């Protein structure tokens, strides 16, 4: 059986020492998992190596960890795959790097304190159904597709991989975060819940709520169950904004709508318009900005200055409204067609409905490929998701 090297970030709180790295050699079949490797170390060599684990089959959500820097489940990552990944990243023969999850305190070795972070945030979203009045004599009658729809959120196993991978949480530890917000969608999307509007209002107004997500896709990538937490957050935003017309004090809704409007019009993001459109939509030459908008604009000046100073905003020309590179050929029309399609269909990419890849056209099915799938047919992933 092939040999692999695991380089584990260890922390033994009773030793009085800080965290340290330790390498272990394991020999096991290539299709076994990194968790199997860790368990082999524990069984044969060092029983003090601790890792939460139970089902070994990506169902219980115990073994969230970082492997080669990626947040994932130890049981779901094949050891040979992790080995190749380590080599690809570093070149040559590098060990598989195993660390505890990020964005939460470490208790010992790979065991983190999920209670003070993850579970506290879960409880923040009132995670139970709030139906109206007494239940019916039989079941609630609801559209069948609504249950399949929220099953994607129900598929969450609370492993914390998304929390560990979240870039917003790194900057704002108070961000409610991807797992808890995906959990919130499970109720907002549930027709039996009577408090959807209240929940959305709460999550929109909270400065650490739905508009605190930066849309970086890290959680979508990390989630071992394809819950796609960010997608659920975006749906919360759409429902809050489009269906319930909730304007938030964080200006999140207007910022997002400015973003999409600019791209619809120009094909790519014209950053010179972003601040103005976010705070005072359609102001240019037509309307007088509200006091709130002026305050917002003025308040954003330091950000703009910082952008210039740090070199993030590299071209001065980009600050001049209207000077923006056009897309080549008829690309702009393509972009607009995507918008039209999205507006007409409002389809959600839900893997319980559409499956992994672009569906083969089935003449007897009304189901068409989702817009996302139609645009980006997903090749077989080699990194494993």
């Amino acid at each position, binding site marked *: 059986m092939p040999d692999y090297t695991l380089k584990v970030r260890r922390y033994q709180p009773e030793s009085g020492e800080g965290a340290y790295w330790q390498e272990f050699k394991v020999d096991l079949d290539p299709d076994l998992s990194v968790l199997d490797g860790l368990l082999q170390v524990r069984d044969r060599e060092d*029983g003090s190596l601790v890792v939460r684990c139970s*089902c070994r*089959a990506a169902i219980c959500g115990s073994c969230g960890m970082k492997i080669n820097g990626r947040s994932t489940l130890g049981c779901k990552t094949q050891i040979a795959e992790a080995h190749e990944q380590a080599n690809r990243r570093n070149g040559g023969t590098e060990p598989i790097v195993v660390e505890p999850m990020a964005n939460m305190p470490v208790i010992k070795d790979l065991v983190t304190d999920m209670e003070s972070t993850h579970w506290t945030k879960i409880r923040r979203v009132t995670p139970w159904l709030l139906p109206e009045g007494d239940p019916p004599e039989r079941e609630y*009658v609801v559209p069948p597709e609504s249950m399949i729809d929220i099953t994607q959120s129900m*598929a969450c196993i609370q492993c914390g991989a998304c929390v560990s991978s979240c870039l917003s949480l790194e900057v704002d530890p108070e961000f409610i975060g991807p797992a808890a917000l995906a959990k919130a969608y499970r109720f907002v999307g549930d027709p039996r819940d009577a408090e959807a509007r209240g929940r959305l209002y709460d999550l929109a107004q909270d400065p650490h709520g739905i508009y605190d997500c930066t849309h970086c896709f890290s959680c979508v990538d990390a989630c071992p169950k*394809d819950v796609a937490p960010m997608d659920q957050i975006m749906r919360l935003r759409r429902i809050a904004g489009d269906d319930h017309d909730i304007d938030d004090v964080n200006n999140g809704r207007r910022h997002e709508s400015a973003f999409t409007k600019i791209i619809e019009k120009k094909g790519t993001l014209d950053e010179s318009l972003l601040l103005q459109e976010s705070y005072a939509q359609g102001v240019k030459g037509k309307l007088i900005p509200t006091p709130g908008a002026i305050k917002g604009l003025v308040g954003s000046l330091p950000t703009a200055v910082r952008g210039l100073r740090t070199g993030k905003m590299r071209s001065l020309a980009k600050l001049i409204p209207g000077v923006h590179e056009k897309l080549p050929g008829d690309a702009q029309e393509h972009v607009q067609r995507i918008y039209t399609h999205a507006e007409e269909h409002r389809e959600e990419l839900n893997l319980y409905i559409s499956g992994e890849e672009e569906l083969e056209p089935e003449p007897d099915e009304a189901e068409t490929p989702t817009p996302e799938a139609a645009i980006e047919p997903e090749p077989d992933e080699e990194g494993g998701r």
Partner: protein
Amino acid sequence: MPRHDVLVIGAGLAGQRAALAAAEEGVSVGIVSKVHPVRSHSNAAQGGINAALQEGDSWESHAFDTVKGSDYLGDQDAIEIMCREAPEEILHLEHLGVTFHRNDEGRLGTRAFGGASQARTYYVADITGQAIMHVLYEQLMKHSELISRYEEYFTTGLVLDDDGNCAGAVMRNVSDGTMELFEAENVILATGGNGQVWQPTTNALICTGDGIAMAYRVGAPLMDMEMIQYHPTTLAKKGFLITEGARGEGALLLNAKGERFMETYAPNKMELASRDVVSRAEQTEINEGRGFPDGTVALDITVVPRKRIHEALREIVLVGRDFAGVDITREPIRIKPGNHYAMGGVKTDVNGATSIPGLYAAGEAACVSVHGGNRLGANSLLDTLIFGRRAGQHSATRAKQIEAGRPSSAALADEERRIAELIGRDRGKGRRASEVRKELGEAMDQHVAVFRDAEGIKTALETVKRLQEESRSAYIDDLGAVFNQDVLGAIELGFMLDCAECSCVAALHRTESRGAQYRTDFPERNDEEWLKHIDLTRDSDGPEISYSPVTITQWQPMERTY
């Protein structure tokens, strides 16, 4: 010192349901789990939960299927209760927020399952157990003022008072290693099964029979311990489960020649015969050389429409992709029978009460017995919920009526000494605890599995006894207090060895074939001698055997064909 009217040990479906039911009665409830509750193994129940709720179905039909599935070893009074109360329980779960599959009218929809005469299995895709358990945990969070949660507390043993009533349990807080005596007027064991005694198994690493062994150690009888279910569709190497729901959706079993071999063994129900029947059929095909070289047969799910697979069997798509490298929508997957479920456990009445006053058990840890010789698919979730609820209610009522006894404080000191001794053992003198565990699993899977005979079972029993001896000096590495999983593993090993011994003794003693117990040296069912349960009570040198009758209400034993 924490003190509760009802202390629930284990926080899977049975435990959480028990805690919620007890809290509804207005008593003080604590729920303890050695892992975070949502890590519990009820998660793994994929296919669904049975109830005769549809028009045209009846609880009697459900009950008869269960009785027949049990090979007439199930107690019919308990089965009647379970099947009668099932519809109400499903509706209760639906009202709490479980996202059950709907039919076109938006009402609860069903799928077909093995051994059932009707499609009466309610489900959430193929994550039914997970979906229900997470919803129950939502309710635990909602009712946190009524129910104290002790998450990651490991129970090392039960404590009786001087009159022999159960009066609490000793806990080790996993995160810091402190030990505490929890006082309780009633204790409900909901600690799940003991699948880890067998290797490989579909069961999680936490399924080590803790509650079964702890009850046995304080003198509660165990029942039906020989009845161990091998699930027909598990992944060859890792033992992971492929839901029976796949066959419910139409998937076929094929041997290496591409023959649909169930035609020979169960011409009417085919792939949806009882699990013991299908597992034996597969093992026969494999043993007689019609399987694949790796000792498997094939499960062909490609016959199910792809859209339906994505909607209803998505977990299996992931299991195939991640753990077998197979796209089940495009090619058959190799499977074999694998250890899955313990029909036996702590003997209880229909309210979950054991022979020890104040001690209850529910779910896989218990044996009511509704599953008898063989459990039907989608009846285990039902068992956990119905008898979890009943145990919760009954123990709460008892709490209101009795005067609490006091557990002896010596119990805590005893447990502390036991763990100190374990940690203090000489490394290098005995074997590593993990080695002992591995040898146990292999011996049990080899000899106490789908086909058994006296010689094999005796070999297993001898091995178990030797391992029991060796485990007394087996050593561990971690000597610390914080998150010492090593020492917990060694305690679990002790629990597993007790369970293994009982399974061997009962399997050897039952000289007939019934349900999951198939003796090649006694291939026939023998109702005259063996229409009875084997009860095991702990004696100084192992389990002492006695019998209890099978309760028959309206279904006399008949020949069992599918």
